[in-house]
């Protein structure tokens, strides 16, 4: 699944970045790599979402979030990473 399809309040592992290279580099510099855990804090129905990653919050547009592959993190481990 992609990050765009993710639900508010859940945590996910990143499994792949498929945005254009320039954006990928910036995301990597912000700490979004394979295996990084992100939590969806808020989202608009169709559009941008807010994630928590490495202790900070990022707002990502649909184009970016729909090109990030993620895998849901098991329940029960979401609170304490």
């Amino acid at each position, binding site marked *: 699944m992609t990050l765009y399809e993710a639900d508010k309040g859940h945590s996910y592992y990143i499994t792949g970045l498929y945005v254009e290279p320039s954006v990928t580099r910036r995301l990597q510099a912000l700490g979004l790599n394979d295996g990084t855990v992100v939590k969806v804090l808020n989202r608009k129905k169709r559009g941008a979402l*807010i994630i928590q990653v490495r*202790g*900070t919050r990022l707002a990502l547009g649909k184009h970016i979030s729909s090109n990030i592959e993620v895998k849901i993190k098991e329940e029960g481990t979401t609170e304490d990473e």
Partner: protein
Amino acid sequence: MNSGEKKKHINVACVGNPNCGKTTLFNALTGSRLKVANWPGVTVEKVEGETAYEDTKITLIDTPGIYSLTCYTIEEKVTRSCVMDDEIDVIINIVDASSLERNLYLTLQLLELGKPIVLALNMMDIVKERGMEIDLHRLPEMLGNVPVVPVSAAKRTGLDILLHAVIHHYVEGMEEYILDYPEVIENKIAKLSVMMQAHYPTHSSVRWHAIKLLEDDEEVKKEHPIQVTNVADKSYEKEIIQCKYAYIEKVVHECLFHKNRKAAVTDKADRVLTHPVWGIPVFLLIMCFVFFLTFTVGDALKGVFEEALAIFSDGVTGFLAGIGVSGWLKSLIVDGIIAGVGGILTFIPNICILFLALAILEDSGYMARVAYVMDSVMGRVGLSGKAFLPMILGFGCTVPAIMATRSLETEHDRRKTMMVIPFMSCSARLPVYVLFSGMFFENYAVFAALSMYIIGMVIAIISALVFNRLEKGKVNDSLLIELPEYKRPNARTIRIYVWNKLRDYLSKAGTTIFIASIVIWFLLNFGVTGMVADAADSFGAVIGRILVPVLKPAGLGMWQIGVALLAGISAKEVVVSSFAVLFGVTNANSAAGMSTILENVHAVNPDFGSLNAYCLMLFCLLYVPCIATVATIKKESGSWKFTLKMLAFELLLAWSVSTLVFQLGSLLQGLF
């Protein structure tokens, strides 16, 4: 590396992530002794300040906030060329302790440079507030023994220790620090280092350059054209970044305790402020409140300025008469300069409140949310939500707003944003609204003025939409922005911000508006026959009359308005100054001044009513921006063609909109 004589004057660069409190720290260290300097070779303005520790003079250089030492954005390029400069002796890396994990990434990159670095651990109070703890012994150990100094930029604690560390570290020099990459990469770094050393024997940060070559960094490759393809067979950037973050995770694991004990306040505030439905209404409400305050509280305070100006003006008149100054000189000073410049000064309370509100919004962390909230609207016009931030700055002053478009990713987005920023009504247009809404709308003055801001914003968005349709642009949905924690705005930061803006305003009153007032006075008091008694015979009237046929359909067919609008291109406030000079009032922004102008306007044109006044306000909102803005747009876009096209568009739009409103309005007035 720092052997030999030690200078008594050192250059220190402040480097850090955006929102790490860098500017607050910079202000705390340098006080108000700020100056803006142009960095050689770069067109970007940078802030420099002076401070001293014991007998060493320190020049601090503030750089744009960056996440990484790559060169993908303008900010990164500026900061990178600054820290790479041999003039820089020490780097202060400001780290937001409350988001250590992300901030340390830049730190690891800076450490590879091999320059002396001091870590300023900022926002320790927030760390404590959240119940987190940082092991201040282990942290420097894991970072190659760089000095780590906890500071609070807001409360100004730890600053002396920081400066001491800077001097001490500069004298001692840098210890070699190595983050070990996997063997494959280390081997390649070693090989590239040897090649670098062979080609550039005097080079100081060989390892950093070797790593950058492995990352396939464009600029480094350009500057060091050595054949590396046999070693750097592909970009190892991803692997190198992952190694750094893996190491950071280790550092955080060992040094940071009780992580994730919640920033409850931010999450609660965000529930309302970034709500999917209420986000936009809440934003509009906040902005309306800001402008409402600007007009009402500002107006309440202006009485003080009015009285002061009246006393001053009377005093000068009396003094000049007393020493027997000739009539023309008295007229120049009282009717020209005092009326032109003094009238503008009475708007200081409004300006202060506007900038105070903008400063609070910026410093609290709300601005970044606006980018998220407005992303869907902006996306539809082909811009990212981030483009809305420079537009909001445009409410203050268009010039810094145009410069702020640098944060946008593509040149195309920059130009489109630059094109619409002038429609965001800047503080210089505020006096025009205050004057004309005050004269013609009485009890509804606030609403008439407020409507200008809304109309400006709507026109900005509509024109961006039209451009997007014309070029068959797509929806832009590639927003990427960090949302900082909310924090209580820092009084000192806000004071410095407002003071700087106020100083700009005052210096504009002392230069541009001063000169414009003299020129206008000359144009209105002299004609082909020399000094004229009636302004209708003056040069100004001749020029103004040329514009009358053009302005007539918009309800602005008076030569006086033509002159005022023309003069207003020097600075928008000059429209008000011109009216003051034209109708001989010392203080346009007072009840007496307003009624005199009103009387005189009606003497010239009895039909000039509230509809005409509204069209005049509209025209001032939309027509060509001031000279300073035009120069900035030319500089930032690097194209005269673009700048001229933009001016033509704005002039045409201003005329069309005010004509449309006037014609429709007249029609409606005829019906009822």
